[in-house]
């Protein structure tokens, strides 16, 4: 099987592997940053010990939560950080750091920038829908004609290549040749 010299895929729809790698990179960044923040806050808390410095705060019902945050609080904080990270970067730059590394960009279906509201809806509604369908919402990229996931369809967005994308042709020819061989019965 031969592969003709491909033209650039700039502006074309990005596929599953590129998007998944971008997601992994974002996950690493989020974990590292939030972990560092949590460690710093824990350290400050143990040093400050609000309850002993300001004893009158004990009469307030929520002091216990501030002085001794439960895992629930940490979960809520990490979720809020996750939402802020995605909405901020997508709304103001059109891509998260992971997507920037992979040369991807999120645009609306009419080529416009993604607003804060659209980015928030894509994340808070689209992602749970994609996730709750046993992850099929994310895998929909593999079968969709426009390589959209379910959350892209709900939010009206495309994820496209923002560089002169071209495949590694040697790898592609090799793997497609193998794929095209008839399988034994």
């Amino acid at each position, binding site marked *: 099987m031969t592969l003709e010299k491909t*033209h*650039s*895929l*700039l*502006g*074309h*729809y*990005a*596929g*599953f*592997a*590129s998007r998944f*790698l971008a997601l992994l990179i974002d996950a690493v960044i989020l974990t590292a940053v939030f972990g560092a923040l949590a460690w710093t806050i824990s350290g400050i808390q143990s040093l400050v010990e609000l309850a002993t410095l300001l004893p009158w705060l004990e009469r307030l019902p929520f002091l216990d939560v501030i002085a001794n945050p439960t895992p629930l609080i940490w979960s809520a904080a990490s979720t809020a950080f996750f939402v802020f990270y995605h909405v901020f970067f997508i709304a103001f730059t*059109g891509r998260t750091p992971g997507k*920037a*590394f*992979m*040369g991807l*960009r999120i*645009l609306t*279906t*009419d*080529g*416009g920038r993604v607003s804060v509201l659209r980015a928030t809806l894509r994340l808070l509604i689209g992602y749970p829908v994609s996730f709750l369908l046993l992850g099929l919402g994310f895998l929909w990229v*593999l*079968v969709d*004609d*426009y*390589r959209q996931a379910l959350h892209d369809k709900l939010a009206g967005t*495309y994820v*496209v*290549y*923002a*560089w*002169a*994308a*071209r*495949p*590694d*042709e040697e*790898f*592609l020819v090799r*793997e*497609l040749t193998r*794929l095209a061989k008839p399988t034994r019965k």
Partner: protein
Amino acid sequence: MPQQDKDFQPLRSLTRLAFGGLLMAQEELNHHMRRWEQEASRQRTEQRQRTLAHADTDDEGEGAPPMLPVADTPAEQARYALVGLLFETQDRVTQARRTPGPLDRAAASLLHAVDTNPALEPLRRQMDTLVSRGEAEVNRWIERGRSEEMHSRQFVDTALQRSFESSIHGVVQHAEVREMIHEQGAGLADELVEEVREHAVSTDDYLERLVRKYLKRTPREELPEPPEAVRRRAMHIRLPEASQQDI
């Protein structure tokens, strides 16, 4: 003039450099030669074991006289004999230095006679005085040699280290070299990013074809063109390229 400059003697420093260099070179060479000998011995043993494993005839055993190869020419035999003589002589000289021979024994007898004869007492006293002076002088040489050897080693160490540092410093000081190193580093990073992206794009296509094949969907050779507005927007905001290739 500072005291250190007054004490500086070029000839002495040169002697230390030469002597220290020889010492360190000899040690390094000995170290390597020991390793090479061990490696060569191990290879000979393995070769011998392989030969024995494939031998059809009986072994000749240890201690049998060495058999000359059948195909040696007279010139080769003469060469082997000379080389053998060289090593034999070396071994005999080394052995002779360790074991006393007849001359050594005769000299020892004579000295014993001189040492025990009472008539030779004044001569012995003179000899003892000379020997003491000689011993003192030799001990002074030994001390000086010990000290100078240490100085020579330190001198060569310092010389090598400073030479290396100044070479690196000289290379780094040149702006062209720094620029080249920086460009090389940046170029490598950009190449890596582009490599990762290209593989991801290939994998995008490959995975899609794989899924379409197993879902019995019609494979597609090309992606559908995105809306013109999307393409224009992507071109307008194109990310910086690793390579400056245009579409």
